[in-house]
């Protein structure tokens, strides 16, 4: 297996899918000549040219709409948002158009499109560039929502998303683009949407984490194992919608304790949804109330110390596990 950064794993997925299907093209701001704001599309324009890798004006609503119309007419666009924060300008096309088209056309027009880009916090980019939007998009029927946390998942899930016949919101993380991992070889390496992955097996407490909080949870698990001899299981749903509840419920039935760590805000979050489902399906198995760690309920501050304070980190996750284990 090759060791790749998440950035390069995504790049490979795009390259392979462009080669595989003539209807796949990548469109967005700075994706072509500039090689991508975060270099996810590096080299693709040079290799495939203007038709398959398309620079757009700064016109998020406009190019999201072009993607939706092109997908209705038979293409498979991959639309890059330089950050998901900018997708809010295009939310009308994602939510009112892409998500509804199949239903309101009585099953006639599906929209095979991927909207992708970095989601969540980065490095002191402040209030308008640090939001995690998964709960927002996951709230609307008609959209799939995907969040990889490793290089292999990034590649396998992006390829599955491009081949999916529905609109997919694919949420990457800027801080994670440089993280390395083993990626299986071969053009047909696909990870099906809707299947969670147990990133670390354990018996005493479950942590459900996604995207940036997965590596944090894994570090926290090691620390707790070493310091308290508590065995933590880490589950990454990978796909927020559809959500693989079975894997989460089975784990909670085994460990009887649950911590949810997420980068998005606390109120009405995906964690709140998972917590509710666990209450519904595994109430009698819980030995402690479910603990949720989220971003502080404030816009993201700029100052480094305040930004750190706002976000989940290893120590906060360790403290949460201790709390549910009554340590």
């Amino acid at each position, binding site marked *: 297996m090759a060791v790749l950064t998440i950035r390069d794993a995504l790049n490979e997925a795009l390259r392979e899918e462009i080669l595989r299907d003539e209807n796949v*093209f990548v469109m967005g701001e700075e994706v072509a000549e500039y090689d991508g704001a975060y270099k996810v599309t590096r080299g693709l324009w040079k290799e495939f040219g203007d*038709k398959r890798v398309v620079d*757009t*004006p700064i*016109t998020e*609503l*406009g*190019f*999201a*709409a*072009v*993607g*939706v*119309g*092109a*997908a*209705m*007419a*038979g*293409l498979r666009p991959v639309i890059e948002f330089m950050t998901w924060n900018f997708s809010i300008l295009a939310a*009308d*096309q994602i939510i*009112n*158009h892409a998500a509804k*088209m*199949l*239903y*309101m*056309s*009585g*099953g*006639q*027009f*599906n929209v095979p499109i991927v909207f992708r880009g970095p989601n969540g916090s980065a490095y002191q980019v402040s209030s308008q560039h640090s939001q995690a939007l998964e709960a927002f998009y996951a709230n609307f*029927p*008609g959209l*799939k929502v995907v969040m990889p946390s490793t290089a292999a998942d990034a590649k396998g899930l992006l390829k599955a998303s491009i081949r999916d*016949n*529905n609109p997919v919101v694919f949420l990457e993380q800027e801080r994670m683009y440089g993280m390395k991992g083993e990626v299986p070889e071969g053009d047909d390496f696909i990870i099906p949407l809707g299947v969670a992955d147990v990133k670390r097996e354990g018996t005493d407490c479950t942590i459900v984490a996604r995207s940036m909080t997965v590596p944090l949870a894994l570090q926290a698990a090691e620390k707790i194992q070493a310091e308290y001899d508590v065995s933590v299981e880490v589950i990454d749903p990978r796909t927020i919608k559809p959500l693989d509840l079975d894997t989460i419920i089975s784990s909670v039935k085994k460990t009887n304790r649950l911590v949810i760590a997420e980068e998005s805000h606390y109120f009405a979050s995906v964690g709140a949804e998972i917590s509710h489902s666990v209450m519904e399906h595994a109430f009698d198995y819980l030995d402690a109330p479910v603990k949720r760690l989220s971003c502080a309920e404030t816009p993201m501050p700029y100052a480094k110390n305040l930004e750190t304070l706002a976000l989940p980190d290893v120590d906060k996750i360790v403290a949460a596990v201790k709390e549910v284990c009554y340590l």
Partner: protein
Amino acid sequence: MPKAATVTKKTSTATKASANGNGKVTKGLDLVDVELAKKEFQARKTSQLAAIKKTDKGLLREMLYQMVLGRKFEEKCAEVYRMGKIGGFCHLYIGQEAIGVGTMMAIDKKDMVITSYRDHVQAMIKGISPESVMAELYGKEGGCVKGKGGSMHMFSKELEFYGGHGIVGGQIGVGTGMAYAAKYKGTDQVTLCFFGEAAVNQGIFHESLNMAQLWKLPCIYICENNQYGMGTSQKRAMSSRSIAKKAEAFEMANEFVDGMDVMAVRAATLRAIERARKDGSPTLLEIRAYRYMGHSMSDPGNYRTRDEILKYQERDPIVLFKESLKEAKVFGDKDFEKIEQEAIEATDAAVKFAEESPYPAESELFTDVLVA
């Protein structure tokens, strides 16, 4: 000089020529008094006569039939809406028939169409049966989208009808994407993308026209200027009067067309189609008409006077077209009666079908959310 600038210059001339057929730009259609309206009606008829003589008789009959069907169908919609048969919003097309017919009967079957929520008549012109449009309005299983869309969301993939859309202006961007796909795949399909004049104030209009001209997309943007965005007149909502001229900011070809004159609409559309098929370039058509009814069935219309509506009815597109056809000796009163009768029968059959069609099965609630 850049090529695009030349195109704009040329179309400015075309604008003048197309405005009333004698090189004089029509001024302020919304300012005419009844006498002037009558005079304009005469002038329009003269120009229609010439166009009619050059057009196939079968096509002329179909054009008139579709206009009359559109009128009768929408009148019936108003009637059954008041009886509580149709729920939700219901936006009628009465007064604007020449736009739908003049544009859509100039394209080929393979060409794509997308429009706003005022979509019943466009859907029928594209070939969706009056039965399945009416059944959709009734929220029945036999509707063209199985009762799941209603008045604002008629679709037919088979007939290249990409829907009625409910967010003002949203479909302008989607239509741009459809044209993008045609260019990408190398088909010679054109896209007709309809929207009202109030949608022009949305950002998506400007974002779309910029990309369409930048990338040379075969999209014909058709602004159906019925002069009111819901209850707010264009004068109260737009800093400039001409919508066609907004295209010049993008160096895009454009024309202003009298939307009461179906032959003028057709001629302008044919010019735009040629531009789209020949070098893939887009056009903005501002086609000015007037909606006789309220914005939707729930609109009492307090923002305008009865006189204003009557003034426009003096220039009614169907009456005008009939008189021209008669004067050109193509059709006579008996033909008109027959056409009207056919339209009434089609509308009645549509109502019967809708009445008899069952409501969707409860299991339909959860179908078509996602596709396999």
